[in-house]
C-alpha cells in the first residue's frame, strides 16, 4: 500500500490546478498551506501525538488536517455542535494529547495543551514525518452516552476517489455538508487530492452569501444531503449556480429531489452515493433513479479494490478496502463480521430488479443526515416528572427526510386538555436543555399506553 500523506498528494496535483480553500472572509491557496504553517510551527511538538481537531471553523479544521496528516499519530476530528460532555468523552477514549483550536474557547476541561490554528505563515521546510500512518478518527453517535470513534487511514478515505479524466475542464467544489462529517470529508479530500478549489461555509452564513461565493469561485461540483438540496431548491437564488456535477449522500435520495434537481440543473450529472462513517463509500448511483440496481449486490474480491455487497437479515452489508479499520477504545465492539462485511443497518428491499432503502434497523433515525437513537431521546423525555414512559419514532418528512415523533404516557392524573400544551412545552424545554437541536421531538402525542414486549422492552415495530 503506498505510504503517502495528504500533503504528498496535494504537492503532486498542485502544479496543475493551483486551487484554494475558500471560506467566509478568508481564502488560503494550497500553495501557501504547503510552504507555510497555520500552527505557528507547532508541528514538531505535535509529532506522533493524538491531536483533537476542534476549531469552530471548517477552514481552520481543514488547514490543520492538511498540516498534521503524516505528522500526528492520530487526528480526531471533532464535528460541529459537539457538547462539552461529548468532547471530554472523545478526549478520553482517543487518548488525546493536544487540542487544535481557532480562537473560540474550547470548553473541554481537559488541561491539555492547546494549539492555535490561524493563517498560513512562512515556515522552515523541516518536516519530520511520523513513522506510522496517521489515523483519522471520526466520531459517530452511539445509542446512548459517548460517541463511537471510527478509525480510518487516509488510504481508506481516499479509496473511492478516482482521478478525474484527463482534459476535464477546471473543477471547483463546494459542499453543503460540513467537512468534519463523513460525507463532507469525502468532498474535502476530493478537492484537496486534485488541488481543486473548495468553497465551504461557516455557521450563520446566510445561504445566499454562500451561493454568491460559490458563483464567484465558479463552482462546478457540489455535494450535500438530500435535505441540503431541498433547502437550496426552496431558495430564490438556486439559479446562481451552474453545476456540472451534483452529489447527494447521507440520506435516502427520493424521486422528488432527484427529479427537482434534474429540472433545475439540466446540465448537471446527478449522482447519489451510499456511504457511512463505518462502511466508507460503498457505491454511487448514476442513473438518476431512487435506490440502486440489483446487479450491485455481489461478493467481489476486495483485493482487486472491488466493493462486495451482501444482503443479510434485510440489511445492506459492505466489504471493501474503504471500510473503517476499527472502533477506538472499544474492544467489545466489532466493526466487521467474520467475512469482513460491515453491517450498515440500512434496510433494503428488492422490487423489480432494484433495491430501495427502507430506513434504518434498530430504529436509528436519520434527520437530514444526522443520526438519532430513539433511546437517547426517550431517556431525556422520561426525566419530566409527569412522564411515566415514552416511545420515539421516525416520521417521514418532505423537508428533512425524517423528523421525530414522541409518544408519551403520562402518570395517571387527569388533566384538562388545555394543560396539554403547557406540558408539551415543558417536555420540549427539558429536551432543549439536554439534546442537540435535531434530536428534540418535532411532535409530541400523549397516548394512554405503549406496548411492552414479554422481554420488558418497548415494542418498536414501525408504524
Amino acid at each position: 500500500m503506498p505510504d503517502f500523506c495528504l500533503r504528498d498528494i496535494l504537492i503532486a496535483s498542485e502544479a496543475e490546478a493551483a486551487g484554494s480553500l475558500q471560506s467566509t472572509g478568508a481564502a488560503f491557496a494550497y500553495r501557501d498551506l504547503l510552504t507555510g504553517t497555520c500552527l505557528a510551527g507547532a508541528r514538531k511538538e505535535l509529532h506522533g501525538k493524538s491531536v483533537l481537531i476542534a476549531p469552530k471553523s471548517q477552514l481552520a479544521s481543514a488547514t490543520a488536517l492538511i498540516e498534521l496528516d503524516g505528522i500526528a499519530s492520530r487526528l480526531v476530528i471533532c464535528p460541529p455542535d459537539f457538547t462539552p460532555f461529548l468532547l471530554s468523552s472523545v478526549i478520553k477514549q482517543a487518548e488525546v494529547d493536544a487540542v487544535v483550536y481557532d480562537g473560540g474557547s474550547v470548553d473541554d476541561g481537559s488541561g491539555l495543551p492547546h494549539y492555535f490554528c490561524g493563517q498560513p505563515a512562512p515556515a522552515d521546510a523541516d518536516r519530520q514525518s511520523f513513522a506510522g500512518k496517521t489515523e483519522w478518527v471520526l466520531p459517530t453517535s452511539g445509542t446512548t452516552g459517548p460517541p463511537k470513534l471510527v478509525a480510518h487511514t487516509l488510504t481508506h478515505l481516499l479509496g473511492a476517489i478516482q482521478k478525474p479524466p484527463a482534459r476535464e475542464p477546471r473543477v471547483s467544489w463546494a459542499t453543503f455538508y460540513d467537512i468534519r462529517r463523513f460525507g463532507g470529508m469525502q468532498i474535502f479530500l476530493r478537492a484537496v487530492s486534485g488541488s481543486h478549489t473548495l468553497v465551504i461555509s461557516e455557521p450563520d452564513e446566510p445561504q445566499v452569501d454562500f451561493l454568491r461565493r460559490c458563483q464567484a469561485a465558479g463552482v462546478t461540483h457540489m455535494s450535500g444531503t438530500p435535505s441540503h438540496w431541498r433547502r437550496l431548491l426552496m431558495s430564490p437564488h438556486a439559479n446562481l449556480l451552474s453545476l456540472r456535477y451534483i452529489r447527494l449522500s447521507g440520506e435516502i435520495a427520493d424521486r422528488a429531489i432527484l427529479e427537482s434537481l434534474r429540472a433545475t440543473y439540466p446540465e448537471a450529472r446527478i449522482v447519489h452515493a451510499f456511504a457511512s462513517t463505518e462502511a466508507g463509500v460503498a457505491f454511487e448511483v448514476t442513473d438518476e433513479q431512487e435506490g440502486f440496481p440489483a446487479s450491485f449486490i455481489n461478493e467481489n474480491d476486495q483485493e482487486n479494490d472491488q466493493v462486495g455487497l451482501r444482503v443479510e437479515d434485510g440489511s445492506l452489508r459492505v466489504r471493501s478496502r474503504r471500510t473503517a479499520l476499527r472502533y477506538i477504545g472499544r474492544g467489545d465492539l466489532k466493526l466487521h463480521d467474520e467475512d469482513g462485511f460491515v453491517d450498515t443497518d440500512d434496510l433494503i428491499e428488492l422490487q423489480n430488479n432494484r433495491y430501495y432503502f427502507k430506513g434504518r434497523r434498530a430504529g436509528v433515525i436519520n434527520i437530514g443526515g444526522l443520526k438519532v437513537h430513539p433511546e437517547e431521546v426517550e431517556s431525556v423525555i422520561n426525566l419530566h416528572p409527569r412522564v411515566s414512559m415514552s416511545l420515539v419514532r421516525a416520521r417521514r418528512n418532505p423537508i428533512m427526510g425524517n423528523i421525530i415523533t414522541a409518544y408519551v404516557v403520562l402518570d395517571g392524573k387527569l388533566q384538562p386538555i388545555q394543560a396539554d400544551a403547557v406540558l408539551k412545552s415543558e417536555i420540549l424545554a427539558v429536551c432543549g436543555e439536554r439534546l442537540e437541536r435535531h434530536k428534540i421531538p418535532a411532535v409530541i402525542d400523549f397516548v394512554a399506553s405503549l406496548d411492552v414486549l414479554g422481554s420488558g422492552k418497548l415494542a418498536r415495530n414501525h408504524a
Partner: protein
Amino acid sequence: MSEIRTTVISQFKRVAEEQNKKLTRLDDDLVLFESGLDSLCFAIIVARLEDELGKDPFTASEDVQFPVTLGDFIRQYEHA
C-alpha cells in the same frame, strides 16, 4: 384570511418561539429561508400542519414543487 392561512401563520409563530428564532414580517412575498426559520423549523411546521389540516402537499403530489415564498407555501396547502 382563509382558515388555512391562519393555521399556517400561527404554526410559523409557534415553531419560531419554540426554536428561539426571530421571525420577520410574514407576508406573501417573504422568501421562506429569509423568514428567520431553517430547514428543521420547516420540517416541524410541515409535520404539525399535516396533523392539524390532514394534508402534506409536498409528499402527496406526484410533481413536487419546493416552495420558495410564504405565498407559494400557503397556496400549496390551499390547492392540496
